[in-house]
């Protein structure tokens, strides 16, 4: 096989993994939590069944809502997908990366946030407004944390493209990488609404963040939201794995290591969720600010 065909096949596999694997991560998290709780747990592929079931259902729309409510889940999904295409799973090249695409990466998630919160306000529900307020406030702290990680990577790899940044071997800066990875893991927990910041399984609307913003969505559109959220988890996990694990010369081996790492992160999230309780809402900003400071220290170590 020629090198270019190999690269093309690699890109195809990357995109297929991005499309097919996200719900599996939710299955892994659930299974780890079940085992830790002494239960057998739902089947590993249950999230796929849930999504298919939602796709077959009808939808109910509140008469308060406008087109924004209907467009938001799909726009969020498309923006998330595009962000996923910017993060290399295995070998680089072949996708849409460009110099400066790291800014686009962060801002695509912001597009999702804008539409999700706007759709929440579109319903006029006080609960959804509450969730929107939390979502936009926490982003004030997670975005600088992500930017400190990106700054560290940019200075270490001397590049401004995620493809190069995440695949360049960063030797001799273990401290920076560890601190960035720790900070980024916290950001991942916040952005993907996991315990201790948000609990996707809670039954009380007052305490939710992401789930409460999508209370009024139903059927296929709700499925799109769940799928998009799982995809975001997959993308941020890939980012974290690429940051933390050494790059291998063989892109296929690298791909395998990355996928194993992503599943490992899902298992780690399951462990975290089993071991910790939700923190009080008023303490959440302190925790995220702590993570942002950790990434800032990582950056300072990188440029010292």
């Amino acid at each position: 096989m020629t090198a270019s065909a190999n690269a093309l096949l690699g890109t195809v596999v990357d995109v297929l993994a991005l499309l097919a694997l996200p719900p599996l991560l939710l299955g892994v998290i659930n299974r780890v939590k079940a085992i830790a709780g002494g239960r057998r747990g739902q089947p590993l592929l249950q999230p796929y069944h849930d999504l298919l079931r939602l796709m077959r259902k009808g939808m109910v729309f509140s008469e308060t809502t406008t087109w924004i409510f209907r467009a938001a889940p799909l726009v969020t999904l498309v923006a998330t997908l595009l962000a996923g295409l910017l993060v290399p799973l295995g070998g680089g090249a072949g996708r849409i990366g460009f110099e400066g695409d790291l800014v686009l990466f962060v801002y695509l998630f912001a597009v999702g946030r804008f539409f999700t919160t706007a759709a929440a306000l579109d319903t006029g529900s006080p609960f959804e407004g509450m969730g929107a307020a939390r979502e936009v406030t926490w982003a004030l702290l997670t975005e600088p944390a992500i930017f400190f990680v990106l700054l560290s990577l940019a200075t270490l790899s001397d590049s401004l493209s995620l493809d190069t940044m995440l695949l360049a071997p960063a030797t001799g800066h273990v401290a920076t990488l560890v601190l960035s990875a720790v900070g980024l893991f916290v950001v991942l927990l916040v952005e993907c609404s996991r315990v201790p910041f948000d609990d996707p399984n809670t039954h009380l609307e007052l305490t939710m963040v992401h789930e409460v913003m999508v209370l009024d969505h139903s059927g296929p559109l709700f499925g799109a939201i769940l799928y998009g959220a799982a995809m975001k988890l997959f993308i941020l996990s890939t980012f974290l794995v690429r940051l933390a694990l050494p790059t291998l010369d063989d892109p296929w081996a690298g791909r395998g290591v990355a996928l194993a790492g992503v599943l490992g992160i899902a298992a780690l999230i399951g462990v975290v969720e089993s071991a910790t309780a939700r923190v009080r809402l008023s303490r959440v900003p302190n925790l995220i600010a702590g993570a942002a400071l950790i990434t800032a220290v990582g950056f300072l170590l990188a440029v010292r």
Partner: protein
Amino acid sequence: MEVLIWPLLVAAALLFVASGLLAARVGRVLAVLAAASGLVAVALAIALGAPPLTLSLPFPLGRLTLGLDPLSAAFLLPVLVVPALGAVYASGYFPADHRAARRTAIAFGLLPAAMIGVVVARDAFALLVAWELMALAAFFAISADDDQPAVRASSWVYLVATHLGTLALIAAFAVLSGHTGTLELAPAAGLPPATTAAVAALFLVGFGVKAGVVPLHLWLPGAHANAPSHVSAVMSGVVLKMGVYGLLRAATLLPDLPQEAGATLLALGALGAVGGAALAAAQSDLKRLLAYSSVDNLAIILMGVGLALYGRAAGHPDLTTLGLAGAVLHVWNHALFKPLMFFVAGSVIHATGTRDLDRLGGAARALPRTARASFAGAISLAGLPPLNGFIGELFIYVGLFRAAQIERWPALAAPALAITGALALLAMVKLHGAVFLGAARDPAHAAHPHEPRAMTAPMTALALACAAAVLAAPLYVPWLAEVVAVLAPGSDTAALTAVPVLTVSLTLAGLAATGLAVALAARRLTRGRSRAAVGTWGCGYAAPTARIQYTASSLSDMATQLLRPFTWPRRAAPELTAALPAPAAFSEATPDPVLDRLVAPAAARAGRVLPRLRSFQHGRVQAYLLYILVALVALLLGV
């Protein structure tokens, strides 16, 4: 063809003046003609290069020099376009029987003419005359509703602030011409470092007042909030940019500016961006929110300018190129989406009778066109892909990351810009959500359907321009190299191609197209499966009212509290102690930290303390003689 440039530009200025003198329906045609005439002149100047024009005028004016280089051309575009759209909007928005209709229209027509003068003036005297004319025209335009005390107060604050700025400019040009011996605006190399620093500081104060550089922004929120909306649009979209133009022009006069100057601007920009965005997110007045958002956007532009000046002094041409390109792009983009949002604000005020975000809601039903325009403007203003706000910020981000790779410390501005972006998103979700989504929170201010063509057409034009600016980016971004050449002659502009604008543009267009295609496909696939005639689910609560909705203030309260060092809110929260507490009230407001919490209290205290000195001035000549004697003795003893 070059001979046509100056006549066309002068015709544009005269047509703008004439547009203010005639009735609004005629005036708007003249304003559009003025813009067209000016745009042809700018296009000719860009294509052919404009010869400088020197006129010898009779005393007291003397010799007058005009010029139109790429830097002037870049700033002429918003100067021409926004006021013309403003005039069209005003013909539907501003009542012809308003008590100050005539004065406002005249001032509104003079404003762009004066700004054309500012941008093409090539000697200090002409610049100062045009500058003062612009400042006064703006004063009369923003004080249209001067029967209201709030409008009078903010207009006076503006007048005082702008004249303090002009004073600094006169001082700056006096010092500069004292060294160079000429009033012409030409690069003055070889100044002593102390003089350069002094002149640069004076320019920063003089132009910074107009550009809303924190903490000199204190006049800006009140003036924007209390002016008629078409005036706010021009103030925010164009007049503030004259401050940026001034700073850039001043930088061309001082080629020896040290890199500390760029660093100062970058730091002030980062502070102003976060502070302005935090204050914008905290406001519950529609137009004050937009005004603070202008502080934030101008600060982002300032970051670009600072990066460019830093790069010029430190010998990093790619920082100069990326910073200046980002600044100019953001000047243009802000001139599209901010007037759009002020037009939206005007329409909302007309249709609801209030600008209090906590009383609005659900206006999308009565004002569908306005709501669509507002949504596009909000996305663009928050700097989100795929609209134009993203492009300028992308250049500044890339510049900051490059700076981080070279020099380390400017890196800290990138997370500041990230916080600014998150805050801008919060402010825009709040604005659009509180005004157009949900249901009306106060039935007395539910929106009436009122969307005359004269008001929707400028909004639609600007919203479409926000999209077109992204698609056309590969066409105009390479031209920015010529603007860079004005600021840093001979500088290498290869960095302009470092950001592959074509790829970015196509990616963003692809994002928009994919989103649209997915939405249409989903609509087809799920047709007949939806039910629309139900209420929002209230989590089991059986009697929901519109008043239980989250208000705009609640939405931003967490962020306001988190950013207390910037927002400094005034909060009156009752303390609940007993099991059955008495009725209590809660209130929160975020006045301007500089004006309302520092300057105004200090001025009030001075007003209380200083009158005591009046007891020395009582008109008794004997006592005055005694003062003279005391002063003489003190002097003799002292010397």
